[in-house]
């Protein structure tokens, strides 16, 4: 059915694009605040470390197989990346993984004592809250997904739904493509409305493509 008044949305889209172009030409270009969001153990800190190590020579945080290793927001400022179209200036904000549950027993399985595990669980819950609060402070977001896992989880749906509702420009990063069981097609099928860039944060594969995508779509 043709609904004539919906044409107004095409006009609005055109106006938005025109405004963006004007901003690019005349606007006061500032570094973008780029948040890394995703579920626990998706590889956000591995990616932040790789980018920071390559361009600043220092790592952002500790990476481990223990869930909730990143329990506080970690920020790296003034990263300048050389891309096909010049320079990409950004501040990377590595968020704690989003989860709907935190059980201290999941940490004791990794050999952490009960007292330490309980403290870690407490910090992990605070980290999740902090990450959600930071949604109000980021200019753009990379949603890092583990491409070896089912992408259609409620955590992923909630993160992406919130970014869409707030109008925050987003790229989905299909991480861990170096692993044989990875599938970025599943991610593309689950979230067809978004750009998906397959990478391996561990090996650095396709990072150049990611930088170009950030520059093209998020700045």
């Amino acid at each position: 059915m043709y609904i004539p008044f919906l044409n107004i949305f095409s006009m609005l889209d055109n106006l938005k694009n025109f405004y963006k172009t004007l901003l690019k030409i005349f606007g006061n270009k500032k570094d973008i605040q780029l948040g890394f969001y995703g579920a626990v153990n998706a590889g956000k800190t591995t990616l932040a470390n790789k980018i920071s190590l390559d361009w600043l020579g220092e790592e952002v945080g500790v990476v481990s197989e223990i869930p909730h290793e990143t329990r506080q927001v970690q920020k790296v400022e003034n990263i300048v990346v050389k891309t096909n179209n010049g320079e990409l200036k950004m501040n990377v904000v590595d968020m704690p993984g989003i989860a709907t549950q935190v059980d201290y027993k999941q940490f004791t399985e990794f050999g952490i004592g009960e007292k330490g595990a309980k403290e870690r669980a407490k910090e992990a819950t605070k980290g999740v809250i902090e990450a959600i609060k930071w949604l109000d402070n980021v200019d753009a977001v990379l949603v890092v997904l583990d491409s070896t896992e089912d992408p259609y989880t409620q955590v992923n749906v909630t993160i992406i739904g919130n970014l869409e509702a707030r109008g925050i420009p987003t790229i989905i990063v299909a991480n861990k493509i170096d692993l044989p069981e990875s599938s970025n097609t599943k991610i593309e099928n689950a979230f067809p409305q978004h750009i998906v860039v397959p990478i391996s944060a561990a090996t650095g594969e396709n990072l150049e493509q990611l930088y170009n995508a950030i520059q093209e779509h998020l700045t």
Partner: protein
Amino acid sequence: MEVQLDFVSSESLSPMGSMEKVAFILARIKKDIIVVLEEGLNPNEEAELIESTMREINTKDFHGIEFYRLDNPPNNLRSKIASYIAGKRFGLTIVGPTRMVRAIKKEPDYLSMLAKGGRKKRRINVQSAKKSTKKGRKKS
């Protein structure tokens, strides 16, 4: 093994604000009740649900929630307004305590959940706009 499910109609949730909805859900979850919402939460409410859950988690008996929405909200302005005009709402949502919800298979239009019993109970509750929570309960 006994599981209590509370079915909540969209009419009974719609007068509530976001925080009120989240408090309503979490109060039941903490009593080991699985809540089935006829109308799902919007993304902002889902984020509030996660945030509030994190505040309530303790090391004794509450480790969090599992929740699942059967469909996605419209993802652009055009479809949002078209859905609003058509009266479409976000889909059925199930929220349960993590220690009871055992396994899930989820696709955009299909949801399968296994749950194990919490405390000793065996009730199916249906809440509608016309009946309060207590009045709407049926014991089986």
